[in-house]
């Protein structure tokens, strides 16, 4: 079998990333230029600034990925790029760069859905076993995705309002944590105790959907009420109580879906997969289940990166998915529109 080398490019939010993956599973190079420091002073990602940074970083990052891989463009099998969802102006930079490289070297161009990328980060750790269930949690997403085979995606649950990561960021802001707040809440939670009883949004019976806006408001109200009454709140306990509510709902729904769908694997994906509270509780819950393997990628592959885009691109390439030079960035790209079945 010929070796397959896919160059992946990812610019959907505030990381400019490029990577080369061999045969869909092996990381040859994985370069990420983060903009976190730039956006810190604004307390969040400023889309126009993110786009400006991507333009300045894009060729540097791709060059580094190619150099580390020790490959020439002529040795590539194809170029995979995040086409959406994400910030439209940010996505555009990766899309235009990928199209230019595909054009310059007459390479196949493979469009990749960002969430498919997060899921396929797991394939860089261990081979996927179907059917499987993936819990995707990030700043922009909270979704339960069922896969019967490679390239098949069925969204069985998603958030109806805020993404889990968004709730983390907002709670972090109330507690005056520096941006990005998620890791701070996670650390504080580990130092505190869940003393406050926050709501759990289970929604209708049997639903795999999520909702975090009620919880977010409850946390904000608790802080404001305490301030008005002149009471002090132990931030660590507040963080622990908030995190317990988020994690309990995520884990319970994931386990229930895993049983109902009879899956062989549960894959954790997305930036919030780096959260220790979530990792620990999910691990505990899966230990009680027979025949289900839990896969959690290392931190570096949970946050946005291009290795995951190339890994997904490798599978899409084999399935014959191609884009032409009219490919556009699509901020609202639908995952199921990418599904093979």
């Amino acid at each position, binding site marked *: 079998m010929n070796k397959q080398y896919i160059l992946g490019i990812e610019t959907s939010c505030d990381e400019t990333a490029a990577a080369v993956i061999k045969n869909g599973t092996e990381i040859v190079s994985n370069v990420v230029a983060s903009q976190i420091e730039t956006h810190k002073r604004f307390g969040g990602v400023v889309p126009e600034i993110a786009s400006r940074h991507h333009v300045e970083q894009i060729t540097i990052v791709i060059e580094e990925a190619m150099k580390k891989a020790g490959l020439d463009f002529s040795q590539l099998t194809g170029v995979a790029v995040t086409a959406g969802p994400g910030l439209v102006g940010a996505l555009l930079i990766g899309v*235009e760069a990928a199209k*230019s490289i595909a054009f310059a070297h007459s390479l196949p161009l493979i469009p990749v859905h960002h969430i498919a990328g997060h899921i396929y980060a797991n394939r860089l750790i261990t081979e996927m076993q179907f059917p499987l269930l993936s819990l995707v949690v990030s700043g922009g997403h909270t979704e339960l995705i069922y896969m019967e085979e490679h390239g098949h995606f069925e969204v069985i649950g998603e958030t109806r309002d805020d993404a889990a990561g968004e709730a983390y960021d907002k709670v972090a802001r109330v507690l005056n944590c520096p941006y990005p707040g998620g890791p701070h809440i996670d650390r504080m939670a580990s130092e505190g105790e869940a003393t406050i009883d926050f709501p759990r949004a289970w929604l209708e019976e049997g639903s795999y959907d999520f909702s975090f806006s009620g919880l977010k408001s409850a946390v904000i109200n608790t802080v404001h009420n305490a301030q008005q009454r002149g009471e002090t709140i132990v931030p660590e306990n507040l963080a622990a109580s908030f995190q317990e509510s988020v994690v309990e709902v995520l884990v319970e729904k994931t386990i229930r879906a895993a049983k109902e769908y009879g899956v062989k694997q549960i894959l954790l994906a997305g930036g919030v997969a780096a959260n220790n509270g979530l990792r620990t509780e999910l691990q505990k819950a899966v230990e009680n289940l027979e025949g289900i393997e839990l896969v959690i990628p290392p931190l570096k592959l949970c946050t946005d990166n291009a290795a995951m885009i190339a890994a997904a691109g490798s599978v899409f390439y084999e399935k014959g998915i191609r884009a032409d030079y009219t490919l556009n960035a699509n901020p609202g790209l639908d995952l199921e529109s990418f599904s093979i079945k």
Partner: protein
Amino acid sequence: MKILAIDTSTNVLGVGIVNHEKVIGEYITNIKRNHSTRVLPVIDFLLKDCGIDKSEIGKIVVANGPGSYTGLRIGVTIGKTLAWTLKVPIVGVSSLKLMAASGRYFPGLISPIMDARRGNVFTGLYKYEDQKLMLVEEDKHRSAEEWGYRLKEYNQPVLFVGDDSNIHKETFTNILLNNAQFAPSSLNTAKPGELGLLGKDLDGEEAHLFKPNYLRLTEAEAKWRDENREV
């Protein structure tokens, strides 16, 4: 040597191919439609139509601003990625200078206009001297009215170029009277062939460092700067 010229600074999408001194291909549209889906297909089409292989491209010229932020990034990203990966030089030419090139035979000053909302414009001042386009006042983000009074001091005819000059026609005419002249629509769409010629003799820039000249901070940065200056 073949030069590929790309202009996506405004609603005008322009791709041109110049061979030595000669413009051999131009594609221009002036419609409000996404540049992203169209620029590479146009480059591909035009090269093929002119019978040129991409390996023959010896230089890339991009109109690098000011203009629509997103539009500029599309042209600049395609230009710098192609230049870097094809290992050819890239040069930037002011998008306003490119527009000003329409006034080649105008005996006076040329002020290319891009609307920047709220009574503001992106503009500079240019002049042809011995068939060479010279910069008189640098490209800047300015109030249209103040620009009108500034131009009045020259006491010379001024040609306003670009579709957006119509938005400020009244302002300029009120201030400059008969000295304010406006280019017809056929000269308002910047010619990508001209872009290739303007960049032909310029020294290549480092592709990695190539970026748009937005001529303006982002709103978030401007606000942050103001807030932190007061303290």
